[in-house]
């Protein structure tokens, strides 16, 4: 195969890795938006907290003498997902629930406050510097002839894909098959009606935040494995991009968020390979503006009818 094609395949691999992380975070945005129509601006920070908690768990387990990667990872993942979900729940309970029913700018501004608060909370408790982790899992597969360009797929990238697909499948099954999932869909469709029919909508909304936080925590751990680096400000830009992914796929739609995440990941990895790495963020934001311009409902979204 010619080198240029192999290089393109490499970008597809990188894009899918990045995209599945965006997808995991984007689901949190899309679910919250679908259910209460607000942009949870602090969701990127939840992802950052997930990454930190994952790293803390890994370090603690290593200090306790557990060094089998296959034991370390699931334990750290479980720990981070549970504690981060707690953060998601507390955030909704403290900063958003009292604002239910107010003008739509009010919760958005509150969310910006939460975002600034969490960034500085982590910076104060964990320091402002990057914390690096030595690579836990090394190696990968190489495809292509020796001497020419080889497509490299690291084991971590494979793990990212597997974990992301696992979580997304679980979520899809939860939303489509369980009674709580049905309550979620009902609340998203019509909150007042769902309440009249006996659904505890406050609980459903809290659950949405918890689920979103759990997925964001998973994304955080995967990123930490991939790049081996965390800091208190890592969530901000990733958060905006994941939101872009959610809009791209059609906000409010869970499969849309997955699709949007993957598309954004691909766009970004091709942009950084063929244009310039400095401008990859510009590409992502420009994509957002273009999508809103030509298809404001996103790829899988349905047009919203405003009722008087």
């Amino acid at each position, binding site marked *: 195969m010619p080198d240029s094609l192999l290089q393109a395949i490499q970008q597809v691999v990188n894009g899918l890795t990045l995209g599945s992380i965006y997808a995991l975070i984007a689901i949190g945005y899309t679910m919250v938006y679908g259910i209460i129509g*607000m*942009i949870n601006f602090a969701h990127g920070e939840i992802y950052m*907290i997930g990454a*930190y*908690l994952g*790293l*803390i*768990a890994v*370090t*603690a387990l*290593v*200090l306790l003498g557990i060094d089998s990667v296959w034991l370390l990872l699931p334990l750290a993942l479980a720990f981070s997902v549970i*504690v981060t979900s*707690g953060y998601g729940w*507390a955030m909704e309970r403290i*900063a958003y629930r*009292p*604002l239910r029913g*107010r003008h*739509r*700018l*009010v919760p*958005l*501004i*509150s969310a*910006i*406050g*939460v*975002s*600034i*608060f969490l*960034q*500085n*909370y*982590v910076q*104060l*408790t*964990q*320091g402002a510097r990057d*914390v*690096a*982790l*030595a690579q836990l899992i090394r190696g990968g597969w190489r495809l292509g002839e020796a001497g020419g360009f080889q497509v490299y797929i690291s084991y971590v990238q494979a793990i990212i894909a597997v974990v992301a697909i696992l979580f997304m499948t679980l979520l899809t099954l939860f939303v489509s098959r369980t009674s709580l999932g049905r309550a979620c869909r009902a609340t998203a469709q019509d909150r007042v009606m769902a309440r009249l029919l006996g659904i505890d909508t406050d609980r459903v909304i809290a659950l949405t935040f918890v689920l979103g936080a759990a997925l964001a925590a998973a994304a955080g751990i995967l990123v930490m494995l991939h790049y081996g680096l965390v800091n208190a400000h890592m969530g*901000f830009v990733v958060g*905006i991009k994941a*939101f*872009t992914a959610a*809009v791209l796929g059609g906000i409010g739609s869970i499969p849309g968020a997955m699709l949007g995440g993957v598309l954004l990941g691909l766009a970004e990895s091709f942009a950084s390979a063929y244009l310039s790495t*400095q*401008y990859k*963020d*510009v590409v992502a*934001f*420009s994509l957002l*503006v273009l999508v*809103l*311009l030509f298809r*404001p409902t996103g790829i899988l979204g349905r047009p919203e009818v*405003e009722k*008087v």
Partner: protein
Amino acid sequence: MRARLLDAGAWALLALLLAGPMAGLRLQTEGTGLTLVTQWRPLAVIVVLVFVFRLLQQTALPALTRLALPKPRLSGAGLARHPAVLGLLFAVAVIWPFFASRGAIDLATLALIYVMLGLGLNIVVGLAGLLDLGYVAFYAIGAYGFALLAQHAGIGFWLALPICGILAAISGILLGFPVLRLRGDYLAIVTLGFGEIVYLLLNNLDGLTGGPNGIGGIPKPTLFGLEFARRSADGPTFHEFFGLEFSSSHRVIFLYLLALVLVVITLAVIHRLRTMPVGRAWEALREDEIACRALGLNPTSIKLSAFALGATFAGFAGCFFAARQGFISPESFTFIESAIILVIVILGGMGSQAGIVLAAVFMTLLPELAREFDQYRMLLFGLGMVLMMIWRPQGLLPSRRPRLELRQ
């Protein structure tokens, strides 16, 4: 009381569980690996604070907030509108710098820049009800506009001021045109993205903007061509012309007065605009877009006018900022800056001009007064935003709309 204690205890326990791994353990690099250090103080502080706060929130706070925050009617806004009061305030603002220290005047100038930014953003957020999270981008366009004009075309401050305003307005229109048709929250995110794009461009277009190093040597404003320097090659300087002893504080006071004039003009223009049809249309649109449409108003063009005008004032402020600093770099135009301006608007009370002036002064003075809390400044800032939204979303001095009430 027992139930309240139990409830506060439950919250403290939750705080312990959540903050435990994050605030109680600190990651530290050791050689090539990582290790964890326990730190009890931050964790203890968090848990105790949560407990006390929750307890107070249920007992003392409801009574306290009723006492401390009177209803908007009692805010004294009517008195502050009286021409004599306004004139007196203005006279004090003009006279005090001649008796004040240099540092104080500098700080006041900075506060005035924030007043200008707050007033500009108030048009967009407070009056038209559009959330702009990238307002700092227009500020940056004004500042870099002047810096580049001065560097490449040798244009002075006074000519650059209107050009910067127009530049910012044009970029506001270009950005607003595609997205203003959309729902409010999309606008918030697109403006946020725009702010980030501008920041990234400033940082990466090394050839044009100097990248992270910024642009230096920006000329200071002159008074009808008189420079504020010890001596100048282009004719007499300020102190030579008036036969005064040279003093560096002349320039500081001049810059302050210039900012004051700009702020007064901004206040006057916006005050007039509010009573004009376009201003009425902004507020009508904020209240009910569908009703506006039904009355034959074109929401897109009304929003666009608010967006462009708001951007114009940011352009003026940016131009003045660049002239005052003499040096600008992308670090002055980060998202946090946008958030601070937004908080000024909210704190002051959306739509209320007097409130915004007070809030801008407060937000600039606070970090100076509470220097020992510098570390916690942004933490408290974020917390303040949330608490503000919960208890007093209308701001400290909410705007009063002119209205008539029928007495029964």
